[in-house]
């Protein structure tokens, strides 16, 4: 199998990631790029869900990858790779957040520290009615649930439980069962005639 830089992940993502990881460990730059492209959105959302500004989040994601390069030999499998990166990103995000809370606002300012666009800001980007309904109900969830579902939405089914655990969520938060957060979102969607009508 040859790994092209812009090849999207095939259906068996975990096996593919494992193969890329093996090659990256041997110094294959294209394989490393494939892994970076595949996992960056996940790590981005991990950092952003922890309340970092976009600039700090980009920095934290880079730091996590640099730490990975340092620890390449310690990580055995692709599944371990994903949760390892999530754990490091979350830890780094926490470190940066506590640091920025100690300091006066810098050029990034208070506004730059806001984690998420509010429902109003997002509205213009959500052109489908179904997206708007989902987003509205999602925003009503407790913050921990929003964090969990935001992250889990970025990964494949077999990785739900492990990634949730790496996010510091209790066992059984999601995968293999639905878990409290998704059950709550699902119920509020099904109760909404606007969702059911579509």
């Amino acid at each position: 199998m040859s790994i092209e830089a812009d090849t999207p992940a095939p259906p068996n993502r975990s096996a593919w990631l494992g193969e890329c990881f093996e090659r990256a460990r041997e110094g294959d730059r294209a394989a490393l790029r494939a892994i970076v492209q595949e996992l960056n959105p996940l790590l981005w959302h991990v950092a952003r869900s922890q309340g970092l500004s976009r600039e700090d989040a980009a920095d934290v994601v880079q730091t996590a990858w640099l730490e990975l390069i340092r620890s390449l030999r310690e990580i055995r499998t692709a599944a371990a790779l994903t949760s390892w990166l999530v754990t490091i990103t979350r830890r780094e995000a926490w470190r940066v957040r506590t640091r920025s809370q100690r300091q006066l606002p810098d050029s990034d300012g208070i506004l730059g520290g806001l984690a998420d666009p509010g429902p109003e800001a997002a509205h213009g980007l959500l052109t489908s009615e179904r997206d708007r309904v989902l987003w509205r109900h999602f925003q009503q969830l407790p913050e921990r649930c929003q964090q969990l579902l935001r992250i889990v939405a970025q990964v494949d089914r077999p990785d739900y439980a492990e990634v949730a655990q790496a996010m510091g969520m209790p066992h059984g938060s999601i995968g293999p069962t639905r878990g409290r957060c998704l059950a709550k979102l699902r119920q509020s969607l099904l109760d909404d005639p606007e969702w059911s009508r579509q």
Partner: protein
Amino acid sequence: MSAADPLDDLDHAVLSRLSSIYGRVDPPPPDLNDRVMFAVALDDLLVESLDVEVARLGYDQLVGSGARAAERIRTITFDAASRTVMMTIADRPDNLVRIDGWLAPGEAVRVELRLPEPSAARSAYADDTGRFVFEGVPHGLAQVLVHPPSGTDRPVLVTPSLVL
């Protein structure tokens, strides 16, 4: 239809729609992949398995009026367990930048500034007090490596990439 039930198609459809929404309301910066690849593309480190210490961005602050590009000075620090790297980055009238750096604790070691290909990496030597200078550096991505004194087995200190 409780929390203890297995995930079904509707659950997956909801998660997949959520992922797509987040891709629009808060997408990663378009250059994030390139920045990561630049920061980790340390071929010699990968191949020779050199020991690396990763420095973290301490703070990054723009000083001065900013009214004219030539007056803008940015102060940036990177922290690691072994030492701190402080840099002031000043815009020059010729659209290049000058970097004045200090290592704390100070030590006469080689400091390397990696730039994206095809630009070659540059080297500067810090003096005993840890001061070093890079003149005429182009804007764009860069990464700083602080090499240990030759003959020691201390790790190379690397920073995340920064945008000059």
